[in-house]
C-alpha cells in the first residue's frame, strides 16, 4: 500500500460486507415468506423485509464504491488523499445514519416514520429503493458531496489518469443524479421518470463507469499490462455505456403512460446495453491471457475474471431477454425482472466490490496477498456465491416464464395469487440456492481470518 491515506478504505469495506450480510439474511427472509406467508409475521412483514433488502443494497454498494475510490484514487493520483479525516467523519455519519434508517424500518411502521420525520413538509418518501426519510436523504447527499469533493480535490492536485477520471465522472454523476430524489412530482408518470433517472441511470449508465474503472485498476495491477492498452478500451466501454445507457433506459418507460415512441427507442438502444459488459469480458480475459507477471493474489484474479462475465450474463443476456417492448409487454413486473435484477446487481456491482476488496484488503493489512489457505477458502466462496446466484436467477426465470404464461399469455388467465401458488416449487429451490449463497458469503468473510503458515513469507 504505497499511500498511508488509502487505509481509510478499510472501514468502508468492512461496513459494506457487514451490511451485505444483513441484506442477504433479509433476502432469505423474503424468499421464505413467498412460500410460508406468515413467517416472522407480524414482527417483520414482507413489505418491511423487502424494504430493508432493497435499501441496504444501495447503501452497501455506496459504501463499497466509496471504499474502492478511497483506495484507488491516491494510488492513481500518486498523492495522499486530500483529507483522510473528512473521509473518516463521513464514514461514521453514513454508517450511523444507515443503521438508524434500517432500524427505523424494522421498528416503526412506515407511515409513522413518515410522520415523525415530517415527510409532509418535503415529501420524498415511498419510492422503491429511495424510501429513506427526507432527512436521511439530505444527510446521504451531504456525505456523497463530501466524498466527491475529497477524491475530486485529490485527483485535481495529482496525476490524472483515465481510470481516475472515469471513476470520478461516474461518482460525480451518481451524486448529481441523486439530487433528483428530492423532486417528487404528484403526477405519477413524471414521478416515474424522475425515479428512473436516479435508479436506472445509476445502474445502466454511470455505475458502469465506476465498475469499468475499478476493474481496469485491478487488471492493471494484477497483470502488469501497460495502462495505455486498457485506457483506449475504457473509452470504448464508457462511450457504449453512455449511448446505450441513457436512451436504453427507455425500456423502463414502456408501460408507465409515456408516449409510444419510447417503445422503439427503448428497444433499439437496449440492444447495445450488453456491449460494455461484453467488451469488459473480452478485455479481462485478454489481459489475463497476455499478462506480464504472475499475481500472488489468485482470488482477486478470479473475481476480476468472473465480474464482467457474470455482468454480461445478468445485465446483458438476462436484461436483453425482456428489454424489447413486444416481449416486455408480457414480462414486466414478473419474476423475470427479479431474476434479471438479482444476477445483474450481483454480476456487475456486488462482484466488482468483492473484487476490489479481495485485491485491496490484504494490502490494507500489510500483506502482498492473503495466504494460500485463505485464498483457497476465498475461491470456494467465489464459486459458492456465483453458482448459487446463477441458480437463483435461473429458478426465478423459470418462475417468471410460468407466471407470464399462466397470468398473461394464456386464453384463460389466472389471478396473481393463484399463480403464485403454482410457482412454489421454484420459490423453494430459490430459497435453497439462497442459503448456499449465504454460506458462500460467510465463507468469504471467514477467508479473511484464515491465517496460513506461509502468510509471513508474503508479508511486505
Amino acid at each position, binding site marked *: 500500500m504505497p499511500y498511508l491515506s488509502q487505509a481509510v478504505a478499510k472501514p468502508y469495506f468492512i461496513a459494506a460486507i457487514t451490511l451485505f450480510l444483513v441484506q442477504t439474511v433479509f433476502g432469505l427472509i423474503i424468499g421464505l415468506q413467498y412460500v410460508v406467508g406468515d413467517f416472522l409475521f407480524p414482527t417483520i412483514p414482507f413489505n418491511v423485509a423487502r424494504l430493508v433488502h432493497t435499501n441496504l443494497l444501495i447503501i452497501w454498494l455506496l459504501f463499497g464504491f466509496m471504499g474502492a475510490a478511497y483506495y484507488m484514487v491516491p494510488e492513481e493520483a500518486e498523492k495522499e488523499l486530500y483529507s483522510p479525516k473528512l473521509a473518516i467523519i463521513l464514514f461514521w455519519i453514513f454508517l450511523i445514519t444507515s443503521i438508524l434508517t434500517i432500524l427505523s424500518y424494522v421498528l416503526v411502521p412506515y407511515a409513522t416514520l413518515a410522520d415523525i420525520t415530517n415527510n409532509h413538509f418535503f415529501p420524498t418518501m415511498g419510492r422503491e429503493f429511495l424510501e429513506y426519510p427526507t432527512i436521511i436523504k439530505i444527510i446521504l447527499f451531504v456525505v456523497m458531496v463530501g466524498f466527491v469533493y475529497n477524491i475530486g480535490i485529490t485527483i485535481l492536485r495529482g496525476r490524472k489518469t483515465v481510470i481516475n477520471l472515469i471513476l470520478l465522472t461516474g461518482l460525480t454523476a451518481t451524486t448529481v443524479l441523486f439530487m433528483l430524489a428530492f423532486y417528487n412530482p404528484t403526477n405519477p408518470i413524471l414521478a416515474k421518470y424522475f425515479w428512473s433517472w436516479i435508479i436506472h441511470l445509476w445502474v445502466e449508465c454511470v455505475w458502469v463507469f465506476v465498475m469499468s474503472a475499478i476493474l481496469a485498476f485491478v487488471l*492493471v495491477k494484477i497483470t502488469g499490462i501497460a495502462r495505455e492498452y486498457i485506457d483506449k478500451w475504457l473509452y470504448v466501454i464508457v462511450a457504449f455505456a453512455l449511448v446505450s445507457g441513457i436512451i436504453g433506459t427507455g425500456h423502463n418507460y414502456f408501460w408507465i403512460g409515456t408516449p409510444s415512441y419510447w417503445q422503439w427507442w427503448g428497444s433499439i438502444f437496449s440492444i447495445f446495453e450488453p456491449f460494455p459488459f461484453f467488451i469488459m469480458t473480452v478485455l479481462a480475459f*485478454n489481459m489475463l491471457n497476455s499478462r506480464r507477471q504472475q499475481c500472488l493474489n489468485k482470488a482477486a484474479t478470479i473475481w476480476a475474471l468472473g465480474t464482467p462475465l457474470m455482468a454480461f450474463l445478468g445485465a446483458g*443476456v438476462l436484461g436483453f431477454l425482456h428489454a424489447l417492448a413486444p416481449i416486455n409487454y408480457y414480462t414486466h413486473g414478473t419474476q423475470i425482472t427479479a431474476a434479471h435484477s438479482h444476477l445483474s446487481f450481483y454480476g456487475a456491482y456486488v462482484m466488482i466490490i468483492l473484487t476490489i476488496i479481495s485485491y485491496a484488503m490484504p494490502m490494507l493489512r500489510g500483506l502482498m496477498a492473503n495466504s494460500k489457505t485463505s485464498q483457497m477458502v476465498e475461491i470456494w466462496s467465489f464459486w459458492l456465491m456465483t453458482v448459487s446466484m446463477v441458480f437463483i436467477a435461473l429458478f426465478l426465470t423459470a418462475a417468471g416464464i410460468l407466471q407470464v404464461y399462466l397470468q398473461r399469455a394464456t386464453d384463460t388467465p389466472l389471478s396473481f395469487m393463484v399463480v403464485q401458488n403454482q410457482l412454489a416449487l421454484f420459490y423453494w429451490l430459490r430459497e435453497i440456492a439462497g442459503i448456499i449463497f449465504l454460506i458462500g458469503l460467510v465463507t468469504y468473510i471467514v477467508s479473511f481470518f484464515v491465517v496460513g503458515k506461509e502468510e509471513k513469507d508474503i508479508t511486505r
Partner: protein
Amino acid sequence: MSQEGVVQKPASIPGYILAVVAESLYLINLLVLPGLAFLVLAWLYLKYENKYESLSPLAGCHLRQTFSASIWAGLLLILVVWVIFMAGGVNAPYTWVIVILYFTICHFTLVFLGIVGLVKALAGEKFHYPIIGPTS
C-alpha cells in the same frame, strides 16, 4: 505491487487478422447478425479451405473451428428448440420454461466459448472449441 509492462503485439503472426475476423464473425453471428455473419464466415471458410497450409496454421485453425462451431450453434439453438417444441407442444407452459432456460444457458455458453476463442486469436494462439470444434 506490480511493474507495469508493455503488452506484446502478436499482430505480426501470419494469419492473425483472418483468425480474429473468424472469431469475431462467430460472435457477431450469435449476438448481432445471426445468419448474415455466418454467410460471411462460410464464404471465408470456403475461399481459404484448400489454402490453410499456405495461409497460416493460426488462421486455418480459427476458420475451421469457428465454421464448425457456428454450424453446431445453429443446430443447438434452432433444431433442438424445434424438437423441444414438437415434443412438448407450444401450448404447454413447461415447454416454454424448458425452451427459454435451455436457449439462455446454451447461447451464453456458446458466446463464452467465442470470447475465449477471440482472446486466443488476439493473442496469436490456436483454440479448440470443446466438443463442437473439429479435432483435426
